[in-house]
């Protein structure tokens, strides 16, 4: 046993010794002859070279993929070509999911809902989202989002972690790692879940996981209702002082173990206990909505009094933003309308229309929108052809990765703008494509992080949120 510990010590000090030796004169001269990529660099670099425009992000993730054709992307051509086959020239070899590849025909399905233009930006908004139509001048729509992935799990994992295969840190974890928390009593990354319809696409803990980053950066799911975090409160019989003494004793034992084995997980565990202790006091206080005045509940809509709904979560998001939680992510499930779209999407739209806009207006009047970024969108778009039988008042839409619409609002973003364009079929992008990696790069840029610099070395190579791609979309920035 003892030999093993000595070994580890030796190894570590050898590593550090070699690291220092690299600064010898010989190495200096040699290094100038090596190409820049081979030169030794410190691991675990976290530079924050830019100035941040925003201090927090609220990501209203619409899981299941809302149809752009029923929300923000108006295509009258589909009305003219209703029922006709999707032209091969438009489809251009796009792969299909297993669900619609069996179809013999791909009839174009125009939206059953009416659209109109609003605001200075003349943005198109459908009748399903009347509240949104009133605040378009605060929003920056990106109609030209695109991704490679055609199924939910890879696509959601991709947009959250930068790679379709799970295991990597999520966006919130990267942000927490890069910038830390502005409020030490709350986690830097909080997740709130809700569903508009039951039985829709599931979500996984890997989507807010810290991956290979230290575990203190993982997303903490706050449930609505009495007990926001499982097992946070002390069991009966233990008071806060007793808990504090227990934690102190535990910390000293853990620290001793840390010195012996140099395992970084132990440090993470000590931090988690301390954070949990602080959260016992801060979480109930922060999430307490009993004192909110009635007009606030009215603004967010009737569902905001019901814990677990999107509306209630939006209100909580505002409260968390007031407490300077760095990355607040809401997941709202239920948008995966493969069939029965017109009826189901009305339910979904109603559940998000008023709360999303209320959140933005509420942040604005409290002076928070200035340095908060709000993102609203899903993981991909939906097809312009009907999945299943096409009827005038009923149709479904399959997944479509080549174009989808999201919107951004808040600090650093140009308000009242529509960026990017899709073709008349809302199938391909004709102007200013924005890839998922580009979106991630832009989000990090607004936080003052250069997406190429925020890296973490793991298994021999440096990883970053944007993997090996991503360009900041300058045209939407102020």
């Amino acid at each position, binding site marked *: 046993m003892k030999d093993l510990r000595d070994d580890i010590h030796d190894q570590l000090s050898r590593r550090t010794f070699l690291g220092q030796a690299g600064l010898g004169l010989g190495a200096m001269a040699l290094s*100038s002859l090596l190409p820049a990529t081979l030169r030794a660099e410190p691991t675990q670099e976290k530079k*924050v070279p830019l100035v941040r*425009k925003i201090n927090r992000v609220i990501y209203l993730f619409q899981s299941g993929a809302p149809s752009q054709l029923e929300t923000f992307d108006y295509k009258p051509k589909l009305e003219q070509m209703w029922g006709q086959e999707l032209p091969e020239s438009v489809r251009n070899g796009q792969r299909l999911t297993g669900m619609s590849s069996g179809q013999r025909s791909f009839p174009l399905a125009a939206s059953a809902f009416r659209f109109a233009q609003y605001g200075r930006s003349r943005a198109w908004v459908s009748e399903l989202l009347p509240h949104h139509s009133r605040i378009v001048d605060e929003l920056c729509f990106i109609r030209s989002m695109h991704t490679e992935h055609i199924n939910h799990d890879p696509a959601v994992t991709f947009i959250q972690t930068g790679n379709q295969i799970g295991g990597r840190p999520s966006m919130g974890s990267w942000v927490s790692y890069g910038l830390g928390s502005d409020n030490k009593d709350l986690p830097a990354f909080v997740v709130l879940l809700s569903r508009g319809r039951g039985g829709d696409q599931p979500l996984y803990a890997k989507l807010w996981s810290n991956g290979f980053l230290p575990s203190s950066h993982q997303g903490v799911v706050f449930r609505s209702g009495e007990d926001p975090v499982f097992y946070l409160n002390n069991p009966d019989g233990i008071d806060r002082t007793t808990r504090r003494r227990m934690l102190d004793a535990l910390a000293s034992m853990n620290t001793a173990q840390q010195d012996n084995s140099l395992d970084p997980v132990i440090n993470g565990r000590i931090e988690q206990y301390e954070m949990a202790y602080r959260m016992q006091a801060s979480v109930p206080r922060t999430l307490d909505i009993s004192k909110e005045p009635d007009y606030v509940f009215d603004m967010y809509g009737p569902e905001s009094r019901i814990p677990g709904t999107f509306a209630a979560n939006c209100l909580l998001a505002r409260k968390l933003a*007031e407490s300077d939680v760095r990355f607040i992510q809401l997941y709202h499930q239920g948008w995966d309308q493969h069939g029965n779209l017109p009826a189901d999407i009305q339910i979904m739209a109603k559940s998000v229309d008023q709360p999303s806009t209320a959140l933005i207006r*509420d942040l*604005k*009047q409290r*002076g928070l929108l200035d340095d908060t970024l709000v993102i609203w969108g899903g993981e991909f778009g939906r097809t312009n052809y009907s999945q299943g039988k096409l009827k005038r008042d009923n149709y479904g839409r399959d997944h479509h990765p080549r174009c989808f619409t999201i919107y951004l609002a808040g600090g650093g973003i140009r308000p009242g703008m529509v960026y990017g364009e899709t073709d008349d079929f809302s199938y391909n992008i004709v102007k200013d494509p924005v890839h998922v990696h580009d979106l991630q790069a832009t989000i990090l840029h607004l936080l003052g992080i250069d997406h190429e610099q925020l890296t973490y070395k793991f298994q021999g190579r440096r990883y970053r949120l944007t993997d090996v791609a991503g360009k900041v979309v300058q045209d939407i920035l102020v």
Partner: protein
Amino acid sequence: MDQLIFFLGRTHPLLVHLPIGILLMAASMELLVLVRRFAYLKPALPITWRVGAASAVVSCVAGFALKQEGGYDEEMLLYHQWSGIALALFSSVASVLSQKGALLGKIRLIVVVPMFILTTVAGHYGGSLTHGGEFLGEPILALTGVESKGAVVERKPVQDTAQAVVYRDLVEPVLIEKCSRCHNSSKRKGGLRVDDYQHLMKGGKNGAVIVAGAPSQSELIRRIMLGDDDKEKMPPRGKPQLTAQELQLIRWWLGEGKASSEVRVAELSGTSDVAFLFSGNVHAGAEPPPGEAFFPEVTLSPAPAEAIDALEENGVIIKKVSDDAEFLFVNLVNVPEFGDGLAALLLPLKEHVTWLKAGKSSITDESLRIIGQMPNLTRLNLEYTSVSDEGILRLKDLKHLTYLNLVNTRVGDQSIAVLQQLKSLRALYLWNSEVSLSGAEVLRQKIPGIDVNTGVK
């Protein structure tokens, strides 16, 4: 450790004078001893060569260290480096040969002539690296009336911004000041000249650098916007960079103005990027475009650590806003009990604080005495505090304040007089305060470009 290397590098300009003087001396002495009158110098030769060679070698080492700091013209640096190394080698050889008595006959010439040449070459490049290529010739050229390239062009303030020709009056001066030192008629890095419209549009040896109407696709813009560490970044690291406004200006000219040489400002639609042009002040570096996170152009020494520690012990969160500046972000979110008593701890940091979040804390008008003394404050959050009109009076000297949050405070119309003097304000939040709607309207009139938000009704 890096800093030690940099220090070693910084001694290079100092040390390098030794080999220059000593080796030239040695070389001259080699020639002089041919004359009988100076034969007495012979014994001095070995020691002179040895000392000269040693100092040359040490200078090379220091030169390597200086190279790590970066920011030097690559090509010139290479010439300088290798001629310097050659000089050190030659002088070492000479010092070895000289041991055996004065250099005999022809060997003398083989050593002495290169010595003069190398010293001149290495020395001239070294001087050019430091002072620029035209340093030596500039005064002579000025005598003959030839205008030296890359000189700072006097930008005459344009009387009427609207009538200014965008390229000639606004864009060209920027390009000449920041780029033409290396991209002019005699020195064309990458084959590119930017001091002339025709040549600018033509581009360089890798093709056009301007795509009219598409700033994002123009190589000129791409290079300017690269990260500091990128080799291709323009202007290169260490040289004066374009300011954000200058970049916005060029982008606007390329995009809206379609890179036309004729178009005037009035003919284009002014977007928010270039609103500063229309605020009457054309000199770049004056007013920032609205919405940009603006920091006063001051350089500060790092904030006193004891002051930061004292505040952090009380639960205050203090962070730097950016790696490149010493400005601080002070956040009282974890300390709702932070009151006037603790506010005194902020005084040692008054120059450094640029963002202060004091919302929901226990400060009162008293603390605003201290906050009002922070010259570089740009964002101030006072929501849900007990501040009132009396305290706002104390903020009258905050010349750089762009964001002020007074949501849910007792501030009323009496503060309008003070607030309207803060011309730098861009965002003011007055929801649930006692400022009336007409008071808010007055502020909108008095401060151009401000967004006064009184909340949703």
